[in-house]
């Protein structure tokens, strides 16, 4: 399973917990249009670190905060690739 599908599952999980209605996810959907708010993303980022050991935001290089769902997934794919090296 790719990290992309894990992330999609996690969006759904957090949306359910936080009583948010998740929009159908697509690559160019804006994160702010997913139906999730910043608290949801804070939780998602924390769980991704817990489950996969990935924390792209604390990496040495400065990262721009992702704008779309695709940006978000690519950020983690990049982090996973570095971690696998």
């Amino acid at each position, binding site marked *: 399973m790719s990290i992309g599908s894990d992330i999609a599952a996690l969006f759904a999980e957090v949306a359910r917990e*936080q009583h948010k209605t998740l929009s159908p996810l697509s690559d160019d959907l804006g994160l702010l249009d997913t139906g999730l708010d910043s*608290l949801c993303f*804070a939780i998602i*980022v*924390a769980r991704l670190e*817990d489950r996969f050991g990935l924390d792209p935001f*604390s990496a040495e290089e400065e990262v721009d*905060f992702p704008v779309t769902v695709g940006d978000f997934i690519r950020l983690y794919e990049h982090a996973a690739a570095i971690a696998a090296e």
Partner: protein
Amino acid sequence: MPQPLLQSEPDSLWQWLSSAGRLSRRSLSDTDSRVSLAALSRGSILGRRLRELRGRSVLLSTRDQLPAALALIELDGIARRIVLCPPDVASTHLPGVMATAGVDAVVGDRAAAELGGEFFVPCAQGIVPGTPNREPSEETDWILLTSGTTGTPKLVRHTLPTLIGAIPASTALGHGAVWSTFYDIRRYGGLQIFLRAMLGGGSLVLSSALEPVGDFLARTGDRGVTHISGTPSHWRRALMSAAVGRIAPRYVRLSGEIADQAILDHLHAAFPDADIAHAFASTEAGVAFDVGDGLSGFPASYIGRRGDVEMRVVDGSLHIKSGRISFGYLGDGVPQPFDEDGFVETGDIVELHDGRYHFVGRRGGIINIGGQKVHPEEIEAVINRHPDVQMSRVRARKSPITGAIVVADVVVTAEHAPLDALKAQILDACRGTLARYKVPASIRFVAAIEVAASGKLARVNV
């Protein structure tokens, strides 16, 4: 030696404790020894050197509490000032503490000798026979060190009258009581128990930093403890020990942290015949009040009423004025804890609901979740309500999105539901009562949660 009838209030701790009488039947004890209070009327732990300490500013530094307790009894009214040094104060802070307090003598055990410079008086291994002159000549300053998280301890000045101001009013003093406390007596909460035992005609069983909680409970039980105190964290740990059945106290006291409803209920279940009281006190503000109705928080009527203790709520924080408050901090230019009317600003945040004020946390302990303020204690109170939870600690975890999120560490009881189910139940309880940003983003089950030397939950600042 029979004491003359006192014409007025005693002038020293020795006079107070001897006027309570029955010295030969009262004692101070620790893991190794037991000293009868009568021994102090015919000897001294300072040998023949007590007289040399008259008028001096004394740093009292011992590893164990027993020699410190005996030295306190002897030095009050003799020394100009006593600095009570808990054993966990970092040695790097001591030169600053000594300079601020104008220390010109050190009393202590061998480890303290190197601090003393030219003037060091060792505590003897026991009471050295002699006829010490206990005639008081000073109103001694008692300097307590606060256990600040920022490192440098603050030096809080009290005198015996401010320290014992809450004691005569207390109805909890059974004559002949055997007191004990999880606290170190060199901290305010422990010192209150020491003084209650000494003024109230009782004995005291001292704790020891290295002693497992089960051994301590067994030892206090063997000594027949009747009155015992600790922080809610101390008590949560004690209730996890099978040895809790070794004590059968008549009076159980909590102070130093928020007593939530769960810990009050658990203690009532463990000790159904005991009076269970939680006290609000701080080193700076002294003892403000005791609550004995079994409920957390305190009646709203306490605020604004006239009397020995006046309290008001300013910007959510409890402010207190009474004859028991400290004289503030020693040291030039140190910001004082008082507001413009002489009330101590406690920094403890209260909220009013259902006719009672409830403590929700410390002003300095707030976690900021994307601009929303959270007190970890209010979340812990919800988690602790679950019957399978022994204790919990809520802390901030850094978040690139909201600055921080809250996460919880939880210690479960011996018998508990499967952890997955338990986690879901705890989160349900949190979602049912707390705003969503206060619901922990993750729950970690841990074997133990650290309790600091102060008896309070160790909290880490992010």
